[in-house]
């Protein structure tokens, strides 16, 4: 309420401005997130170059099939997210709700697969302190997983408040969408450098 004052004379203009601000804010936040993951990835590259044998041995233990499956899941979820944002901008709230729900489900599927992947590692006696390779592996995929979890929570919050959104105001939907794509893209980087190369 504290923003209520003489400046808000033109409601519609204001809303557009607020929308643009929120979107810029999100982009900036994502820029900082990129740098955060860049820090991890940079460290991983350096540590791999210092210990090539650890990476060779470590990757043998990784399950790239599960990871490839997860990649597919996330790419699909990005698609459903786009469709959801598109639907709300056209005013189709029901479709948006379905799409957001689907995105959240796909995200959860990703985490379930991740869970099996991790427990498989633990079953083989592989832990974050096993070697620098696995330290990096758990660090990067773990933080990515946390970001997925955060994304799912944001999606669920969208679902809860879905009746507030419409073609005139869907800033939050759009921003959650941006965030979700970011999480997806991070994975698309992590998948090859951790599992394949």
């Amino acid at each position, binding site marked *: 309420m504290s923003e209520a004052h003489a400046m808000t004379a033109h409601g519609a203009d204001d809303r557009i401005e607020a929308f643009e601000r929120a979107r810029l*804010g999100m982009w900036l936040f994502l820029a*900082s997130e990129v740098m955060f993951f860049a820090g991890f990835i940079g460290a991983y590259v350096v540590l791999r170059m210092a210990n090539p044998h650890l990476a060779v041995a470590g990757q043998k233990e990784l399950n790239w099939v599960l990871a490839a499956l997860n990649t597919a899941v996330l790419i699909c979820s990005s698609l459903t997210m786009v469709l959801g944002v598109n639907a709300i901008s056209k005013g189709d709230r029901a479709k948006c709700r379905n799409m957001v729900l689907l995105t959240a489900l796909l995200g959860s599927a990703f985490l379930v697969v991740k869970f099996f992947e991790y427990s498989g590692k633990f079953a083989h006696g592989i832990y974050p302190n096993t070697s*620098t390779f696995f330290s990096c592996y758990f660090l990067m995929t773990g933080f990515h997983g946390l970001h997925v979890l955060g994304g799912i929570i944001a999606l669920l919050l969208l679902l809860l408040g879905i009746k507030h959104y419409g073609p005139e105001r869907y800033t939050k939907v759009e921003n959650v969408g941006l965030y979700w794509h970011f999480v997806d893209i991070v994975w698309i980087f992590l998948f090859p450098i951790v599992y394949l190369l």
Partner: protein
Amino acid sequence: MSTEGHAGSAHAEPSFFRKYIWSTNHKTIGKQFLFTSFIFLGVAGFLILLVRWNLAHPGEPVPLIGKLLFGGSGAVPPEKFIFLTSMHGTLMIFFVIIPILVGAFGNFLIPLHVGTHDMAFPTLNALSYWLFWGACILIVIGIVMGFASPQDQDMAGWTLYPPLSAYAGPVMTWVLLAMIFVGFSSILGAVNYLTTIAKMRAPGLSWFRLPLTTWAQFITAVLQLLATPVLAAALTMLTFERVLGMNFFTPGGLELSGQPVGHSGGVPLLWQHIFWFYSHPAVYILVLPAMGMASDLLSVGARKAIFGYKAMVLSICAIAGLGFVVWAHHMFVSGMNPYLGMGFMISTMLIALPSSIKVFNWLGTLWRGQIRFDTPTLNAISFVAMFVIGGLSGIYMAATPVDIHLHDTYYIVAHFHYVVFGGSLFAVFGAVFFWFPKMFGRMMNETLGKIHWFLSFFFFNSAFFIMHVVGLAGHPRRYASIAFLEQTLGHMQWMNRMITYSAICLGLAQLVLIFNFFWSVFKGKKAEPNPWQANTLEWTVPSPAPEHNYHVVPTVHHGPYEYGAGNGKDWMSQVESAGAAPSSERH
């Protein structure tokens, strides 16, 4: 229009809690940052005086409080020495200078300078302050533990080099967590500042009509946004190395008191690269906002347009850009590839170019001005003078062969105190004095202000200049005892004493500032809207600035530095629509 504004501020007077504690108003948050960091300034200053005491009188009990703090004879135990210096550095950088420059002045001034009612995301702004509070609590736990626990509370300097930092005592973990919180707080703040400046400028306020203070805040926010997350990543790794036994930084074969650590494959140099990739840009976070504020203070104080406005803006950008490619000048002796060192030596020297452009422009601004030697201007001039000294010593250290001798000596300590204390903190003194009326509606006392400035300037130099000398002679930093260097440094002990006594006086001089500050909050002379005859937008509203800053969005007609135009009035507010085009608008 204005009636609506009144209605807006009259309805629902916010509760005490909403107004002073969980406030989303940028001015309140700014003041909260200011107070919090002043407290830490006191704490951090106190810690280093203990260090200095031990250097002046090695092994002698600290007068008055020694027994209370350390028990035993009351002397500083060598095991606590590194804790004291590290905590001092960490506090000063992350809990004093950054929060004052960015948190306090950034928050307070940006919305006022761009002519809007608040930050783009007020709730995020409050969150950023409260994350900072989380950090404060964590670091206080660290400080208390450091004093209270009998075991060694080693830390690893503010630079946290592993492997020491990975195996140091538990205080370290609290410090790491505290720094992660500060980092989050900074990132959220940066998102807010960038959005506000980019999207909420008043009509007519084009980019090149922004005051340099706000330009500097903008570029600083870019640095914060892009560099801080890298630090956060590094801190996270180090924390996990400590608590989860992950390994990133511990090399093979490391033993601790004869026990093998049992890790292999980690790369300690990796930490240094990541850390300095953040921390070199961070040293510009520590100075750019001060440069911006000093520019404004000098222009107002000299009653002249800032010399070379666009060059000033571009040099800020250049400093920030180059700041990302010089980090390894902190690592010349770390064993990295010498060819790499050569590249970093050149890029570091390049950064002196935009820095000197700024210095010449400040001098050009003062040249033939009608200088008012009031407290803000005196402090701003001191900023320039001290920055020159600090910048020059920087260039010596940038030369790899010279740095091999200077690295990790008191010469380095002298260098960065000239830029951070002599530079940034003097600009802060000036800025506090200058914007005080807009914050609290009263003026600070001018005589006390001048006394404080003089004492600070005098004792600052007598404390820190000599550090160049002992540093050149080889006095290492972070050493509790230099008894083993008796032959080379023994005859210089009087210098160390002089440094210490000056530092104590410097600390005491700050009492004048504290007294002046609080006395003026309650008893100072009531301030008019524009006590300094300054042009920028904040001076068009009453003092203190009202809840929503501007009743009507101001329309800006020209740049912020139209001073000395003549016609009996030597200034022209940014909102005045000028009939006669002022002289400095030439293109």
